[in-house]
């Protein structure tokens, strides 16, 4: 009889409390498959983290298994969200990320970007209402237009159309701001899928 190679088994996360609501609290993330061990990482793996401190993150050490993709992903992410030049204000790029994460159901991603949205906009109650009530929450005309556009880009089939652009222009977004919104909502369709499918969130403390 041919000996079958034993297959690798997924990880069993340590005892933890699963968050069951959307929250602005800091959360942990526990992987289902093995991240790289720090001592096994080559210069290339370490460089792919972009920020050296991410070596402490199991999420980034897992993605570092394919370093070229991780580095390109991270540099795309940083420019979409952190580039201060023109376009959509940072708070509203974060709002698009939080709304996308709320619709896809990524509690971890939503927690991070709801915190950023609240910090940069100072509209804590509005951000919390988006988390509590979902993408139909009452905000104001500008934020509702941004959330609706993020939802239309996230839905399948994609329903984003000229009417969303028109509505965004009505509430004051110019073409560069609209392009930023498209970038932010689209990027979170990338990020949500990795976070949701490679591990799970856990409450801290």
């Amino acid at each position, binding site marked *: 009889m041919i000996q079958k190679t034993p297959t*690798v*088994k*997924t990880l069993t996360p340590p005892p933890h409390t*699963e968050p*069951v*609501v*959307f929250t602005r609290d800091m959360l942990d993330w526990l992987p*289902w*498959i*093995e991240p790289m061990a720090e001592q096994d990482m080559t210069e290339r793996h370490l460089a792919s983290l972009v920020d050296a401190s991410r070596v402490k993150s199991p999420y980034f050490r*897992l*993605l570092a*298994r*394919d370093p*070229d*993709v*991780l*580095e*390109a*992903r991270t*540099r*795309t992410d*940083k*420019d*979409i969200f952190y*580039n201060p030049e*023109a*376009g959509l204000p940072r708070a509203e790029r974060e709002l698009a990320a939080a709304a996308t994460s709320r*619709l*896809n*159901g*990524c509690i971890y991603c939503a927690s991070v970007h709801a915190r950023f949205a609240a910090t940069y906009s100072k509209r804590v109650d509005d951000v919390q209402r988006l988390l509590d009530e*979902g993408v139909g929450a009452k905000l104001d005309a500008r934020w509702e237009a941004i959330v609706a556009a993020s939802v239309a*880009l*996230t*839905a*399948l*089939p*994609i329903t*984003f159309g*000229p009417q*969303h*652009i*028109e509505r965004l222009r009505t509430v004051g977004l110019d*073409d*560069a701001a609209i*392009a*930023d919104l*498209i*970038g932010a*909502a*689209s990027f979170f*369709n*990338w990020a*949500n*899928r*990795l976070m*949701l*499918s*490679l591990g799970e969130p856990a409450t801290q403390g």
Partner: protein
Amino acid sequence: MSDVIDTLVGIAPGSKLAAIRAQRSEARKHAQASYTSLFEPREVGGVAAYERHAIAAFVAGLHGEPKTDAFYAAKLPSGLRAAVAAEVAAAKTKGPYGHFPKGPLSTEDAPGPTWKVSEAGRKALDARLAAAFEHTHMLVFHPRDAASPALQALLDAGWSTTDIVTISQLVSFLSYQIRVVSGLSTLASTL
């Protein structure tokens, strides 16, 4: 330099949209680098080129954005292209659906199907690629249903941990790229 998003949207040098993308030149450059590292990798590793292209064509087909769909389908030999198209036709649905963790969010649960490759598809694709397609369908339409048994199914089908990272990045990157193409095409139509 050739840029897949510009090509698919039809962004001409010197156009308004080219100027807008130039304001996010790092994002533009690294979205392209993401594409290159997934489809023209320095080392192909455990996910063969034809497997990468087959999964990409499946993702693009499920999204139904005509330009990206045609772009990725064109990279497949005709037999495989037909097999992927048949699975797309059977698998296409609406999203995102799925369950939330049990608790207050359960009232928002939107249950939906866990899709399986057809018998004919399993023969045409082989068991390994069929397992990747089933995982891909979950990632595309109901990612919040993800749980560790889905990764165990990939491991059991012969994919390594690193392969799973590559496949997950591939599907997730395309979920981004297709939306950017759709969004910018819509914006272009209004300029």
